[in-house]
């Protein structure tokens, strides 16, 4: 399980950091800089929380459902959107774009409600596992105040992408997110693209792995990358309906933080191998390949890049 792998990675990092601690403390009891610079320090701090604490605020969260076509999760132009909606309506005449956007707004509000009340069960029926699990892990723990702040956000959505394939319907909603005026009148709104997906075959509550591999027909057993352990084809999931599966946020504060993380990794590319998966997923693949091509290729093959 990804979260477990991330957590184990953090524990390894914490142990490594403890072994590498410099001897004497500095002024005011503060320890001197870690030998590996800011990134190890950053990892150590991340390790003080559950892996999900960062995942719930990271710019790139979640993952498309297994077997999703690569182009399905990219917003298209107006023509592509209209064509996507037309294709979907042929198969599902009940689909109403306006009603869907209303539903998406409700999902955003449900997530905010989960944050503000520290009750992740509110949004469980409409979030895929990879989005919901980190939120559930944070729960009412020590990060409650932080998640409360995320509960203050409000947004309105617009449909910007629609795609259908043999496994899933995929829609992309662009939210314009803002903090309450009384909180930060100067903070400009920012866009967040949320991917919503539903399986053509209904199942799960809210989602479950298909019982059989569509490639080889064997009973569904997944490898570390989430593929069939026999034929290595992606095993799809069944959903009860539309679920939010990914979030790409352009929150300026978190983007700046991500940039700082990337610079730290540039300075210490050897540390990439020890970085937890959810941090690696924040780095654009081309940037990762530029920093450390060998590591990037291997991580991709291992399915660690989401």
């Amino acid at each position, binding site marked *: 399980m990804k979260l477990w792998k991330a957590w184990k990675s953090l524990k390894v990092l914490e142990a490594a950091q403890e072994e590498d601690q410099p001897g004497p403390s500095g002024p005011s009891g503060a320890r001197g800089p870690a030998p590996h610079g800011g990134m190890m320090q950053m990892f150590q701090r991340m390790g003080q929380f559950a892996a999900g*604490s960062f995942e719930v605020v990271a710019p790139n969260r979640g993952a498309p459902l297994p077997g999703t076509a690569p182009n399905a999760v990219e917003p298209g132009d107006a023509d592509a959107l209209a064509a996507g909606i037309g294709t979907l309506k042929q198969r599902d005449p009940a689909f109403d774009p306006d009603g869907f956007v209303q539903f998406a707004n*409700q999902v955003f*509000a449900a997530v*905010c409600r989960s944050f503000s009340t520290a009750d992740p069960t509110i949004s469980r029926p409409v979030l895929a596992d990879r989005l919901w699990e980190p939120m559930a892990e944070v729960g009412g723990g020590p990060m409650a105040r932080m998640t409360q702040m995320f*509960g203050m956000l409000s947004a309105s959505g617009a449909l910007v992408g629609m795609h259908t394939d043999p496994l899933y319907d995929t829609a992309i909603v662009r939210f314009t997110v803002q903090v309450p005026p009384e*909180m930060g009148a100067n903070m400009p709104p920012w866009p967040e693209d949320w991917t919503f997906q539903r399986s053509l075959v209904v199942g799960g509550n809210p989602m479950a792995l298909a019982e059989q591999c569509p490639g080889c027909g064997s009973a569904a057993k997944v490898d570390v990358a989430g593929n069939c352990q026999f034929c290595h084809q992606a095993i799809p999931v069944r959903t009860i309906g539309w679920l939010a599966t990914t979030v790409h946020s352009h929150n300026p*504060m978190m983007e700046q933080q991500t940039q700082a993380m990337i610079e730290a990794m540039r300075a210490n590319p050897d540390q990439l191998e020890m970085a937890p998966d959810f941090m690696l997923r924040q780095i654009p693949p081309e940037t990762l390949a530029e920093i450390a091509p060998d590591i990037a290729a291997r991580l991709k093959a291992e399915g660690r890049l989401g």
Partner: protein
Amino acid sequence: MRWGKTKPDPSAGQPAATGIYQAGCLLPGTDETSLAGTDPDALNAGIAAIRARDANFEPSQFIAWASTIYGMATAAWRTADPTVLRSVMSDTVYVPYSGFVVLLKIVPVLERYMASATAQAAILAADGDERYDTVIIRYSVVMTADIDRRLEVEVGSRQWTEDWTFQRPATYTTHASGKVAVCPNCGAPANPDDVGQCKYCKANITTRTAGWLATRTATTMGGLVRAHNVLQKQHAMGGVPAAWTQASGPFQPPQQPPRAG
């Protein structure tokens, strides 16, 4: 009056008034009215009241010590370790303050901004009575880090004032050298940022108190004040995001859109 309250408030982390976030409470029985005067005459009278019983109390030394305390605060933000402040804060100040430091761990960018704060300290008010000596230090704080322009941080979150009230029992006196920080074991003077052993008696001095404790802090930092006010309002509304309630009425759980077949 700046402090907004006339009696000690047992609750910590409450906004005293719009524009100020206040944490902690004065020691029980503190005569707050005697701290209201901040003009030079009142300030001199307050200092004189302390010096009447403690001739070694030196305002300049106290300001120097208070400056190092703020330096410890920025170190706490930088290292995400609030424990360096434990020995100089009362419980009602330390609990919310350490919570704030821990909160910043999740957003290291904010942590870096806060760690860049520098402060000029000055005595704002002072008083000595039969129970306590009380000194209010005003820190004029400026954030020196380059702030991402996209964040559009307003002036009130880049420079602000913090008023820290330090108190000690009236039975305490200052070391003959005028140093505020002392070894808790032998009473010898110590540099406030000393760690390890007292150079005189070799006792561990990392937990020295010097008698003075910050019992109340108040800040005008815009972002913190607004965040707290919004959280308070949200809490009063039972956790419902205010913006959502205003825009869309009561919360409705998402309902899956209809689906043919």
